[in-house]
């Protein structure tokens, strides 16, 4: 069994673990396996070694070190890190070095985490397989012929391949949970507003959340505790204190009531469904009341999402115009320069979504598309509220299938979009959700079970997830 973050930090503090050796161990694995995995866009080997050296000397000097002292962490390449390239896996930002740190990265660094690299992703987080990357696809460490999921596929693969102890990703429609499920790791999307978005390059602002991917529920919970909490730089940041999640007793599900959402389970592969049933049984054995429930509104989540997210994206990505930073393809006049830069700089999927979103916001169509999607979103939130009057948490597969093969869906956007059908509802509602590995399905690939909870009920969610983790085959 791999060490937990808690154990590593204890070891570093006591001097049993040398942070430099620990980092070298991870860098060696990266050196050996990264060429075939392609989990990173940038490996920050020098930075990581230097930081580890600093921590080692502080420990030697008897100075206090943080709650993540010496822990190697990988971060998605849409999080701004001062001085390192932040590309969002796009040609348009190929050489951009942000002059500031994302709030979540400042918080990791303040706790003495060691950032080993910036991970691969679908361009601007638009995709579900990490194939839409200007730097080529990431491979699933569990089966190199398969995708790691996406868009945080690089972060999921980095954790699965032990390139890092844990990672940060971003989740707009399932981009943390779905790759976590595909790679057999834990992935957590927090309540909207619990974690600052300052320094997260925006895809769809009303849906984006930063969250952890890790080898265990406890590691994910600890990372969340550290990155969560109000940030005055993000107006949508909640005024809630960071939740206390670590060290929670999770030996019993006594008194918990859990609903399995039929609409999210019925369409899943038989083997995925079988694992979900086993997960439900394990919760019952732990003392929970588990029953099947229906939330018909979740069926409208996917179409609503594919209007709202592209609409916001079309506006968020307008700034990549060649004027101030990033790629510029020169032309005789500014509008032509803008057009050529964007035409060369963006990949096909990004262009597809910008066009979708631009269309959805057109004068005269706003109400039929964007307006209607917002109304669906409101209905969905009400339906969840009603369900949470009866249940403490809801259960579903994280994705309808296990990891599919590379290139299998890349030419079929609709099939690709459908792999997020189970995860999107939580983003629209702004609720937390976590994916926990629960056995394997087709071809021995990992299956993820999703636990959803009401806003700010991360503690209940983590408790259920921990029971599942312990019961997992």
């Amino acid at each position, binding site marked *: 069994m791999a060490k937990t973050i808690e154990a590593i930090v204890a070891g570093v503090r006591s001097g049993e673990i040398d942070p430099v050796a620990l980092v070298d161990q991870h860098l060696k694995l990266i050196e050996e396996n990264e060429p075939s995995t392609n989990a990173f866009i940038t490996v920050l080997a020098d930075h990581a070694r230097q930081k580890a050296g600093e921590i080692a000397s502080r420990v030697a000097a008897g100075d206090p070190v943080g709650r993540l002292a010496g822990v190697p962490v990988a971060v998605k390449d*849409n*999080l*701004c890190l001062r001085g390192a390239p*932040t590309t*969002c896996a796009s040609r348009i*930002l190929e050489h*951009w070095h*942000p*002059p*500031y740190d*994302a709030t979540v990265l400042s918080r990791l660094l303040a706790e003495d985490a060691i950032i080993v690299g910036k991970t691969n992703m679908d361009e601007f987080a638009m995709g579900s397989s990490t194939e839409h990357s200007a730097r080529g696809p990431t491979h699933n460490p569990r089966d190199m012929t398969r995708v790691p999921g996406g868009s945080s596929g690089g972060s999921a693969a980095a954790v699965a391949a032990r390139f890092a102890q844990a990672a940060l990703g971003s989740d707009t429609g399932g981009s943390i949970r779905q790759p976590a499920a595909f790679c057999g790791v834990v992935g957590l999307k927090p309540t909207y507003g619990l974690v600052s*978005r*300052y*320094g*997260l*390059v*925006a895809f*769809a*602002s*009303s849906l984006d959340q930063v969250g952890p991917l890790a080898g265990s529920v406890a590691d994910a919970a600890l990372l969340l505790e550290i990155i969560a909490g109000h940030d*005055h*730089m*993000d*107006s*949508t940041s909640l005024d809630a204190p960071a939740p206390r999640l670590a060290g929670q007793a999770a030996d019993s599900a006594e008194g918990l009531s859990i609903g399995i959402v039929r609409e999210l389970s019925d369409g899943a592969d038989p083997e995925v469904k079988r694992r979900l049933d086993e997960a439900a049984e394990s919760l019952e054995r732990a003392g929970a009341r588990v029953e099947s429930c229906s939330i018909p509104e979740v069926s409208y989540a996917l179409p609503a999402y594919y209007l709202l997210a592209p*609409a*916001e994206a*079309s*506006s968020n990505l*307008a*700034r990549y*115009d060649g*004027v*101030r*930073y990033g790629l510029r393809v020169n032309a005789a*006049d*500014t*509008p032509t320069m*803008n057009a050529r830069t964007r035409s060369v700089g963006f990949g096909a999927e990004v262009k597809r979504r910008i066009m979708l979103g*631009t269309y959805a*916001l*057109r*004068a005269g169509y*706003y109400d039929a598309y*964007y307006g209607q999607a917002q109304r669906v979103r409101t209905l969905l939130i009400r339906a969840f509220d009603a369900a949470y009057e009866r249940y403490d948490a809801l259960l579903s597969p994280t994705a309808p299938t296990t990891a599919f093969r590379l290139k299998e869906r890349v030419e079929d956007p609709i099939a690709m979009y459908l792999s997020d059908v189970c995860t999107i509802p939580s983003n629209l509602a702004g609720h937390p959700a976590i994916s926990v590995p629960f056995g394997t399905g087709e071809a021995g690939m990992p299956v993820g079970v999703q636990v959803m909870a009401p806003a700010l009920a991360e503690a209940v969610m983590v408790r259920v997830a921990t029971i599942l983790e312990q019961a997992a085959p």
Partner: protein
Amino acid sequence: MSAYGSERQRRREGGARDYEGFECVVGLEVHCELLTATKLFCGCKNAFGDEPNTNTCPVCLGLPGSLPVLNGHAVELAMRIGLALNCTVQPSIFHRKNYFYPDMPKDYQISQYDIPINTDGYLDLPSGARVGIVRAHIEEDTGKTTHSGGGGRIHDAMYSLVDYNRAGVPLVEIVSEPDIRSGEQAREYVSELRAVLVAVGASDGRMEEGSLRVDANVSVRRPGEPFGTRCEIKNLNSLRSLGRAVDYETRRQVDLLVSGGAVAQETRHWDEQAGHTVVMRSKEEAEDYRYFPEPDLVPLAPDAAWQERISRAMAPLPAGRRRALLDSVGAEGPAMVERVATVVAQDLDGYVMAAVDAGAPGALALSRAANELAAACAEDASLLDALEPGHFASLVAMEARGDLTATQAKAVLAEMLTSGEPPEAIASRKGFEALDPGSLRRAVEEVVAANSAEWERYKEGEAKMAQFFVGQVMKATRQKADGKAVMALLADLLRGSAGAP
């Protein structure tokens, strides 16, 4: 007389002018840069004229990952504007207005759209007209582009330079109802609006620095008919440009209609030198801004206590100050109204009020303020720094008592502005001690006696000889005499000598 009419004629007609049976219909959009220390969504300095791109940060440069955080002081100033314009101040939200332009860092502008902070107000003009206010909403300013090389215009420039110091500066856009009926009235509206914005501390009112920018929507119609097709006029950098542009555009549209043509909806650029408007873009080229609610900001809901606090702390507005001043000096009539307007516009009403409170006659105090003080102010406003209201009150009182003649009073006032001394000290240094009526009469009689030949000519009816005697008396009294009093004494002596046997 030109087709545009003289300024005087326009005044006589009071706002609305007749253009061959048409009337002009104007609505104005005024952008007011708010006087905040920092920008609307970041901590960068809000300042004019600094080194380009020094007041910038990830937020106002629109760098990837940056997010806006609303400036509370900007909201407060916007609320003050709303209250001053008699608007309903309401909970509001922000929208994104999407269009590509290099001086707009995010390629969208954060603005308010269908739910603005202030709606449904009005502004009463000094002339008595009331102009409706549709809305006064908060938005961010753009950067500034300079086109260089080639002809220096956007189409033939070799390159363009962008200064983002202004990007993200807070603005309030004040949109009027189409209630304005002439170029003159448009000027009056903007002039009064500017005074209100300055009074509430929201603006420095400097049109020439662009802190107040005006766009005019102009159409024409026959009175009583529905509104005609309107054109939006841009590049109005002064009150003079605004008045001229509205009049020109009205004439242009009337001429089009009279000659059987039609007005096309378009945006036009005012060329101040050429004195005409030219097409910038037609309706077909108009952008689709794809407005949608700004997801990076939360709804703005100023609580009642905050509003109440702002409302209580509001400085008196120009209209109220004019009313108070008129009441205080007890003046009436158009000339007085104009003096009162001048005095309030120049922020001189405090001096007049102080004089009245000290018991000096209001009309005289108003006259000295509207003429001498206003003129000095126009030359150099800092001159007033030295002038104590109490000293001004003493000066007016001295003149009213006859201790100083009008000429002497003006001379003393001029020196008060530079030295800051009390009028008594200046008057005594200049030897302006009072000339009692008895000594003046004696002086006049002596001059008459010494110039008998001239006196005879005056008696014969040679009226211009009066000037000779006034001059002689002035000389004899070392300028202490009052010209009017000398004239009266001369007339008195004339009557006396005519009646003598």
